[in-house]
């Protein structure tokens, strides 16, 4: 500590303050466990070894000072300070890995990545989903979205979706435009709703919503509903139009901490099936229970 007081006759106190990161852990330890000689607390500052600073006699007229500052280009200095009061860039990423089994014992593994980076107003969202059923090749879906805050709880989003379906003979790559809404609906429903417009007159809606129910602060159930509606589809591997997929269930997670959350998931799913086309046979609708277990990582 380098605080010095000059003689009180001078009626001027000079303080030297050195702001620093910490040097050694040993030293730090000593400071933190400094003798509990508390009665000296008030006097410590004045008892410290001083470094005398040279001081001028300049007298200060506050009005002059502030006027001066006022006329200077304040905008400039302010600019750098902006970022510290609401203009900062943040990010959030979650990675959900799951092992799912259906009623017939067919298993699949999936990984879902969700990440955003940006300010309160403008963000980039990236979402990717890779799913591999047993004895099939992995299917991939990825979206990149620009997200603009439009209301306290809502963002509108626009971007592109890419799908890769290696089981298909043709048109393995599919691109769609995406437009949607992302936010927190009343009653704490985390909600995402998108419209997709793709090649071959593929028009599709999707809705995902979920809500947390706390059993304890760490054991949390999350009922959810995911629905896909096909408005039209003239692709080679078209799905039947109408409600093409519905999955509703409960994911129960245990938040070991806010970064590591194992979960189990029980859901009921309905798939309407595929349309008859020259490239595929029609398929019947399927429905049944899904059981999953997995791990969510957030960072």
């Amino acid at each position, binding site marked *: 500590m380098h605080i010095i007081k000059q003689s009180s006759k001078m009626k001027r106190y000079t303080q030297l303050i050195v*702001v620093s990161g910490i040097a050694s852990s040993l030293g730090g330890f000593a400071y933190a466990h400094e003798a509990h000689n508390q009665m000296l607390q008030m006097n410590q500052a004045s008892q410290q070894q001083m470094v005398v600073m040279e001081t001028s006699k300049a007298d200060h007229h506050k009005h002059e000072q502030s*006027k001066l500052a006022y006329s200077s280009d304040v905008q400039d200095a302010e600019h750098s300070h902006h970022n510290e009061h609401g203009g900062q860039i943040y990010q959030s990423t979650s990675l959900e890995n799951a092992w799912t089994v259906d009623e017939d014992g067919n298993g699949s593994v999936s990984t879902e990545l969700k990440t955003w980076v940006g300010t309160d107003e403008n963000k980039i969202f990236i979402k990717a989903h890779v799913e591999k059923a047993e004895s099939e090749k992995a299917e991939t879906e990825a979206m990149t979205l620009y997200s603009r805050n439009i209301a306290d709880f809502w963002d509108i989003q626009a971007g592109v979706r890419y799908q890769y379906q290696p089981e298909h003979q043709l048109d393995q790559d599919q691109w769609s435009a995406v437009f949607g809404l992302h936010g927190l609906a009343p009653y704490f429903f985390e909600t995402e709703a998108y419209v997709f417009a793709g090649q071959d007159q593929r028009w599709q809606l999707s809705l995902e919503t979920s809500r947390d129910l706390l059993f304890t602060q760490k054991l949390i159930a999350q009922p959810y509903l995911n629905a896909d509606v096909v408005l039209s589809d003239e692709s080679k591997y078209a799905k039947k139009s109408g409600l093409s997929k519905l999955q509703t269930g409960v994911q129960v997670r245990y938040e070991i901490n806010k970064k590591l959350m194992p979960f189990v998931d029980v859901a009921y799913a309905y798939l309407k099936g595929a349309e008859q086309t020259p490239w595929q046979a029609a398929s019947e609708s399927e429905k049944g229970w899904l059981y999953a277990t997995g791990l969510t990582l957030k960072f």
Partner: protein
Amino acid sequence: MVNVTGKPVQRITVNGKFIAPLLEFEEGDEAVIHVHNQLKDQDTSLHWHGLLLPGLMDGVPGFNGFKGIKPNGSFEYRFKVRQNGTYWYHAHSKGQEQDGLYGPLVIYPKGKQPVAKHENAERDYVVMLSDFHETKSDKIMANLKKSAEYYQNQRETVADVWSQVKDQGLKATWQDRSMWNQMRMLKTDLSDVTGYTFLVNGKTPQQNWTGAFKVGEKVRLRFINASAMSFFDVRIPNLKMMVVSADGQPVQPVPVDEFRIGAAETYDVIVEPTQTHYQIQAESIDRSGFAIASLQKEMKPAQHTVTMPAARPRALLTMDDMGHGAHVQDETSKMDHSQHAEMDKSKMDHSQHTQMSKMAMNHNAHGEMDMGDMNHKSHADMNMSQMHHHSDKQQSSMSVTNQHKPQAVQGWANASTPVGHKALQYTDLRALTPQPDTRAAERELVIRLGGTMERYIWTIDGKKFSDKDFEPLKVQYGERIRLKFVNESMMAHPMHLHGMFMQLENGQSAADMPNKHTVIVPPGKTVTALLTADELGEWAIHCHLLYHMSAGMMSKLIVANVNEAKTATQPTSTPVQPSTGESHAHH
């Protein structure tokens, strides 16, 4: 490296010390403070909190031409000390305040003569309360932005809803909860960040900062809440405190048993201890822990183990706190309140035993702990000690408590003050000497405080400081202004004005209104203060919860001579209404 909680972490030091040193001045001095920034890659700044000084010396980067202090750079603060009292200083750059860049600043009256007879005291101690976190400030902010519930570990569970349904019926429960659900707010959001270890003068409860006294002496305690995010209910069991100063400004003495202190506020109290030992207990209002210190009779051996007091019940926010007036105070919650009060009292009497060491251990683990459980456990322990002691009168009320098992009380302002105890209210504060300016306000500036927890965005008049269309508040030099803080959010905001004192409209006459540099605006409430704009310059006005300010809850009040600097536009003004009693702070 700093090691406060047992885990060494990297923090900021001043002159090699974690928790910056006490700076002492005398009124009339010229203060010269030379600040050298040794931080590797960040700018820094120091702000003298509560001091009247030229704008450039106020130390807010971007204001009055002050540009911060660059790495390896220096800045010489130099100003005439025009006041006395208890103040503090802290960084005004990013989250450096949380990371340790704060310290007390005490200005003694000229010749160290007390400003009034009742302020005569043989001892004078700073009691600086603060909140230490093992996570660095920038990381805490990032976590809040990832999920505003990141640190919410006292949320209500399915079981809480179920017990409410059982107690009040489905309909009442639905009515109570639907509004909260529609607003997407949590009743339990008393503090945004948890996991703090609360410190007194940089010491943990176990390190137990201790001030000595002799019986017969008067002791002045200068309480400073230097927390980044925490409010405290402060009490010294069995010791009456006489409040003599608020925010460094002398007030007519008010004898109290406890007071609530918001982030950035200060209160000076005078106590006359007679017992061998007293414990200073500053409990965070979310009841997640205590800052603990002791007063110890000189020459008496100190107790070796620190006994942690049991937590008071935490408050749940009500519709009233949301500013949705229709709050019905139901009888049961009122009763719970008084019963708890009794318990708190009984706890003091019987507390020296096993229960307390248990509590002390709990405290260490409180980062990971379920706080709901903690409340519960402490009740249970209390009941047990009660049994052993067969104590007299309180038995009956304790057994009632057993049946009902209350875990929370209603309303932000409910500190669970024991019946018959006096808690300081803003309305109690009266300036010691008459205010020089007793003019009515010429104009009213409405300052709306808002935000959403979900996105962790906090605003003044709907704007973040960083917004492109942010407009500073402009007032004429010498103008008399009413600042009307309207809290539209469900959190309390300690609103701090730099460079000038506000006269809090607390129901006292204009001459008696107390000076404040920070006023707590409780959730859903309106608080007004008068201001004589007699300091030219640009002054920050912001919420002193660090992460609210970081999220944007800051504005700029420009005091200018409009005739000279033709820049000022006519600010939007509303007709001045006569002061009414309804908007006074009750905290």
